[in-house]
C-alpha cells in the first residue's frame, strides 16, 4: 500500500491487516494438533504464536489453531508445558 503525498514524496506504508500475505497455511510442512485431553488452558501457546494464528474465545475454552494462517513453525509445541501439542506431517 502506498501513500502519494506528491510526486516527490511517495511512501510505501504497510498497515496491519489479516491475511495480507495470502493464506500462509499452505506453507506448512508440519501441522500442530492440540490434544484436548491434555490441554490445561494455560494459553502459553496463544501468547507465543508469532503469527497470532491461535485463537482463544475465553479462558475456559481450549484454544483453536487457525490452519488458514498457521505456518507450522511448531513454537506452540515447544512451549507447551504439558506436551499437549503434537505435530503431524502434512500430506502432499
Amino acid at each position: 500500500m502506498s501513500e502519494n503525498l506528491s510526486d516527490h514524496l511517495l511512501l510505501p506504508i504497510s498497515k496491519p491487516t489479516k491475511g495480507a500475505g495470502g493464506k500462509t497455511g499452505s506453507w506448512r510442512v508440519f501441522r500442530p494438533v492440540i490434544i484436548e485431553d491434555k490441554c490445561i488452558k494455560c494459553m502459553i501457546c496463544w501468547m507465543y504464536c508469532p503469527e497470532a494464528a491461535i485463537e482463544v474465545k475465553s479462558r475456559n475454552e481450549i484454544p483453536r489453531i487457525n490452519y488458514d494462517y498457521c505456518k507450522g513453525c511448531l513454537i506452540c509445541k515447544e512451549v507447551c508445558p504439558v506436551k499437549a501439542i503434537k505435530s503431524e506431517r502434512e500430506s502432499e
Partner: protein
Amino acid sequence: MERYDVITGNDAAAWGARLSRVEVIAAYPITPQTTIVEKLAEWVDKGEMDARYIAVESEHSAMSATMGASAAGARAFTATASQGFLYMLEMISWAAGARTPIVMAVVNRALGPPWNIWSEHTDALMARDTGWIQFWASNNQEALDSIIQAYRVAEDKRVILPAMVMLEGFVLSHTAMPVKIHDQSKVDQYLPPYNPPHYVLNPKLSEPFAYGNILFPWDYVKVRLAIQKAMENSVDVIKQAAREFQEIFGIWHGDLIKEAYTDDAEVLIFALGTVAEQAEATAELLRKDGYKVGVVKVRVTRPFPKPEIAKLASKVSHVIVIDRDISFGWDGILAGEIKATLHDYKVDTPVTTKIMGIGGDDILPEHIEKAVKEVYNK
C-alpha cells in the same frame, strides 16, 4: 546573546546542532568518533540542551536510532567519520529512502589501511549516490551555519531528504578559530520547529504501520524516482536557504557554489572545503604576478550544481580540479563529476585533475601555484 568564541570545528558543529534545537542525538562514542558528540553529551547532561541523548553500540545503530527518532517526528542529529561512516553506510542509504530529514556532521578522514586519522574527502563521497544532500564546509563558521541551513533544506516540504555537512578532519575539526555563536532567537526565526508532512509514528495520532516493506519493481521505481524529484526541488530550496541566511545573519558562504575572482578569470580552480579556501588564498597571490585565476568552491555535491559549473567553465580557457580524494581506477571524484557536467552542457574547456592532500598531506600554496603555472606554460 550573540558572541564570538574561539572554537574547533567539532565544537562549531556541536553548536550548529544545539542552535538548531535538535531533540534526539544518537551516537557511538568511540574512535573514529569526534568531540562533536562529546560536547553534545556534556550539554544534555548539564541540562543546557533539551534533547535525548542515546548512546548506541555502533554507527550502524546510531543511524538506525536517529532514523527512528526522525520518523517519530523529532529533529534528529548524529555525527561520525571515516571508518564509522562506512560502517553506517547501509543505514545512510536507508535514511534517504525512508525520507527522514536527519542532519549529520561528517568529519572527513582518510580510510584505512594504512591507518590514518587525517583529512581526506573520499569517505563522504562514497555516499554520493544514497539520496543525501551533501554540504561541504570550508571553515568552522561554515560548519556551524551549514548545519542550521541543512535542517532548513532537509525539512522543507518540497524536499524531505536527509543532509550531511562535511568538515575536514584536523584542518577544521581540531583547529580553533573565531566563530560567531548566533543569537538563539535569530536561529528560531530562521528555522521553525520540525513539522513533518508525512509520517509520525505516534500511536495516539495514527494506526500502527510499517515503512519499507517489499515493493514490486514497477512500484519501487516510482518511490525511487520521487527521491530524484526531491533532489531536483532541493536546488531552489538551497539557494533560498542561503539567501535568507544572509539576510538574517549577514553571512554568505555561497549556495551550491561560491565564486572568487571568477569575473575576469582565464583559469578556474574547482575544489571542496578547505581546499577551495586555500586555492582562493593562492589565487590572490598569483594575481599579483598576472595569473588570472578564479576559484569555485563546490559547496554542495548533491544535488550537483551542473548548470552553474558549466556556465563558469565555458568562459575560461582551462579548468583545474583539485581533489582531496581518489576513485581508484578512475580519476579524482569531483573531477569526474565536473568532466561529465561539461560533456552534458557541450562545454569543451580542457580539465586537469590534481589529486592533492590525501591522508591529510598538506596542500600548500606552492602546490597550487605549480598546477596553475603548468597550465599557463602549456
